[in-house]
């Protein structure tokens, strides 16, 4: 018995040391960003929130923030419009190719963004000349980037409901495919839809590689450029965007929890 108790104690000490050491490793840099962005000018200057206040005085920065938010909205809408009907359709009518769709959706994890952008260069040149040179065209590429994350979220949502029975019931009552998807199946997986949308927003707000190398200025590119001119303000923006994404992800975890609660209630 005492051997077991001794081992328990050892395990508890081990766990506490691990959590303390790694907790410090992960929290200190984030704390340091707050510390850095609230530094006053000169030695022994008092703490100040000036850097946060001056964010609004950089029109380029405000523009970049707006661009990134618009891109995030467009990308999540586009992702839902493209992926949700496809996944439902494949599940119901083309189950044979579900592995192919999964493989394609996870492919962007294997093709690094830096490689993708080398191939996207000529395509975006063509788009800029023939369609539009707006930064919002980046949403085309971003939709590819978010595929792996959103696919998993949506797949989990689809697996949790009986798609076949729902659609057969709806079709049997005379519903068309549009009605089946948007009015029968989508409302039943609203948690997964929101989850996927929030994940895309988080990915788009953090994207740097593609925008930078295609010469578009989104939030991250602007923050990086600003960092070379005014470190405190750019770190303040970094802190603010980090907080924003964190709030998003907390929201996301709540969405996940309410869904599992409802499922448990139904059983």
């Amino acid at each position, binding site marked *: 018995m005492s051997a077991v108790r001794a081992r328990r104690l050892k395990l508890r000490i081990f766990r506490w040391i691990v959590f303390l050491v790694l907790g410090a490793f992960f929290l200190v840099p984030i704390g340091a960003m707050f*510390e850095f962005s609230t530094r006053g000018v000169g030695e022994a200057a008092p703490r100040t929130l000036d850097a946060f206040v001056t964010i609004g005085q950089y029109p380029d920065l405000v523009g970049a923030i707006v661009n990134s938010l618009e891109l995030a909205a467009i990308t999540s809408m586009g992702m839902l419009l493209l992926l949700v009907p496809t996944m439902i359709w494949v599940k119901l*009518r083309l189950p044979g190719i579900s592995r192919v769709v999964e493989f394609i959706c996870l492919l962007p994890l294997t093709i*690094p963004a830096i490689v993708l952008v080398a191939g996207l*260069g000529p395509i975006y040149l063509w788009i800029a000349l023939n369609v539009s040179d707006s930064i919002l065209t980046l949403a085309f590429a971003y939709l590819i980037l978010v595929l792996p994350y959103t696919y998993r979220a949506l797949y989990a949502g689809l697996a949790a409901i009986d798609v076949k029975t729902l659609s057969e019931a709806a079709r049997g009552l005379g519903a068309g495919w549009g009605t089946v998807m948007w009015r029968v199946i989508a409302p039943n997986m609203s948690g997964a839809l929101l989850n996927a949308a929030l994940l895309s927003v988080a990915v788009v707000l*953090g994207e740097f590689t593609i925008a930078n190398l295609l010469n578009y200025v989104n939030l*991250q590119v602007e923050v990086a450029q600003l*960092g070379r001119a005014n470190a405190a303000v750019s770190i303040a923006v970094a802190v603010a965007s980090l907080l924003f994404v964190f709030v998003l992800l907390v929201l996301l975890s709540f969405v996940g929890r309410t869904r599992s609660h409802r499922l448990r209630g139904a059983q």
Partner: protein
Amino acid sequence: MSAAASTAIQRVGRPVGGGRRLPVSWIGAVPFFGYVALFLLLPTLIVVVGAFFSDSGLTLSNLTGLQKDFIVSAFVNSVILSATSALIGAVGGAILAYAVATGNPSGSFRRLVLSACGVLAQFGGVTLAFAFIATIGQAGFLTLWLQQHVVDIYAGGVWLYQLKGLVLVYAYFQIPLMVLVFLPALDGIRPQWREATESLGGRTWHYWRYVAGPLLAPAFIGATLLLFANAFSAYATAYALINQGAIIAPLQIGNDLTSEVGLHQPGLAKAEALVMVVIVTVVMTLYALLQRRTAKWLQ
């Protein structure tokens, strides 16, 4: 009922003209495949084909151009950086995952750690670079504090903006990723196996050496490979941290793509990108194989 319903659905799906099995249901998948073909497969094809073309036509000059010293050393540095940060991430992440797995499986602390790992594993790029500059840059919080109280960490020169610095910064997203990937394997370990070892007279060392170790090894190696690929493809963090010189392959590709340094070499960039895709694909294929092996025992 489902048989009748599915024939009804099939009848609806059949074309009115009555052609033999014209696959109408394929139409539903066309938008997705069309989109992916345009924005994922076409760019990849452009990279692969473009690596063998120049303005004057078919050529091998892009590939032979890879032999230049600075390109070779960029790739070697990338491999060193990815391997070291993958190993550090794998060991650190496995320890953290074990500490999590031995706790209450439905406790809120576990959920907190897992959500934090989910956030931090994605927390790369410019923000991460700034966080480390604010921490251990020359004017960083920790640097100043250590200078006053303990030791000057930059007594031998500033190493944050070199390969060593990148390893440290990459560990910040590698460790959480390892926790996410490796925890399911650890959760698959049953306490009964330990009890069985003990009732056969085995000690802790025997349990890890002959039972848990061999079971977890494929999952651990697979996860390490995933971390390698993850570090190998990362661009933004290194870009924001390193202002001068393309010391790793992604930075070199970025330099050759843009005319920032006055030399715009799209062909060479594509050849480098091709090498990168090949390396990442090999690593990820091995990862997938090991994953399949892991799934046999631990679910």
